[in-house]
């Protein structure tokens, strides 16, 4: 039986209450919208990408604690990183969030490099609540799309 504490870790609640990198970026090099039709969550990601580096990122929108915390944690995790490293984090995160057909996840323990990242590992508990996975991945899918657009 999945426990609520697995979902609402303290660090997640902290990001929800005090989201990082919140706001718009007037000098953004790209602006990308994400949308979860099921819950109505909405997200806008502003990026400044220069010389293969994600120099700055800001977010606006609304959603549940999981989607808000995930996007806030994401912004902290990728800000200032080289694009290939950002993509690598995205891939690892999405693997962590993947359920197989039989309902099991690949990574009951968080991925090593996410664990090394610290905070993101706190989101590993979300896979125990399959309906919430979409909440956690919205920001990441939107970021992936933003990078595709930024580098197209």
């Amino acid at each position, binding site marked *: *039986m999945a426990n*609520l504490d697995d*979902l*609402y870790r303290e660090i997640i*609640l902290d990001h*929800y*209450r005090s989201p990082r990198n919140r706001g718009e970026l007037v000098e953004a090099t790209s602006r990308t919208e994400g949308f979860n039709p*099921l*819950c*109505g*969550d*909405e997200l806008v990601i502003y990026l400044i990408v220069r010389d293969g580096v994600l120099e700055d990122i800001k977010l606006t929108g*609304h*959603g*549940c*604690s*999981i989607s*808000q915390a995930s996007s806030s944690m994401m912004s902290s995790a990728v800000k200032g990183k080289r694009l290939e490293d950002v993509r690598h984090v995205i891939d690892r995160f999405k693997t962590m969030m993947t359920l197989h057909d039989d309902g099991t996840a690949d990574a009951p323990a968080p991925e090593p490099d996410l664990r090394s990242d610290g905070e993101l590992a706190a989101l590993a508990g979300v896979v125990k*609540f399959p309906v*919430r996975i979409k*909440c956690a991945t919205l920001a990441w899918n939107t970021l992936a799309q933003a990078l595709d657009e930024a580098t197209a």
Partner: protein
Amino acid sequence: MSSFDPRRVRIDTPVFSRVINDRPIVYLDSASSTLPPRPVIEAMDRYYSGHHANVHRGVYQTANEATDIYEGARRDVGHFIGAPDPRHEIVFTKNTTESFNLLARSWGAATLRPGDVVLVTEMEHHANIVPWFQLQAERGIEVRFVPVRDDFRLDLTDLDRLLAGVKLFSFTAMSNVLGTRNPVAELVAAAHAHGALAAVDAAQSVGHQPTDVGAWDADFVCFSAHKMLGPTGLGIFWARADLLEAMPPFLGGGGMIADVRTDGFVPAHGPTRFEAGTPPIAEAAGLRAAVRYLTGLGLDEVSRYEHELTELALELLASGVGDRVRVIGPADAVDRGGVFSLDVEGVHPHDVAQVLDQFGVCVRPGHHCAKPLMRRFGLAATARASLGPYSLRSDLDVLVEALLAAIKLFG
């Protein structure tokens, strides 16, 4: 004291033996779907175990039995809603949504010309909006909305102006988000006074209060079996017999034809014209048992009981949870059903529902397929609790306990 006893209904309803997170289930999602009592489940079981066969055209005994069950359901559900002549007025579809699509694609497409207006309300379910938008895109009709006031009731001040040029006024008897009950007979009369027909979405009302399509003087009524203690996979479309007889077919296939040649086809008469293919037979058996069960409870009793519980719920939600919980719907129990859309300050509906689940409390977060209404009140979603004839006062107590826990968790 009324003889109605929700505990008996609960004993009849097997899902209530479920334990969720070590707590008995507190089912507060009847607006999404009601829980079927054992007689409904058993009617389908019995059907499949002893009578199953395809309907119509059969000569052998089980085929006749299946046909009798299916046609019996048509008759019984017709009588249940006061239909004068069920055999010529009741069409079985798969859900309310298909019923509205049938209305739009058959009656609508045959009747409406570019510029013709269909009037709906801002509190409609998407089932009574999207089919009209589809006609708008395909045939240039106009879709107009009756606004909703800040007190969550229809704003009827401009109704006469809004009804000008309207061919159909299609509105809900009760909002699945606000709980608001609309004055159906009055709205139908207004439509008729302007030469418009009137369609009623009875999905939220038919299992909770007596229905009389004759007293409403309605032209079309749509609802679903699964919201009146019946099974999934079965919707009902009622139409005045003369209107139904004039409607062209919608889905094409077996059972709805009088003749098919290699160069065309001739549709059949009566409701079967709209029932192409093998119909939901076992589901009809289930609906019949649901109608009988609800009739046994007495819709007057159910409605009176749910009204009392609604009064209590509104009180508890106004006072029991501090000032962090706002009910998006009428604050008093007058002309209102047991649906409570909650906006909890600082806690997203998704999170509310998640915490409530820990207490065994089943509520639904989201836009409840009523996005125009959500937008009207500046919300993306609510957490909705809703009652059925098996709901208890104690359910409301657990709801309040769980809401307080959610508020505490998110500080």
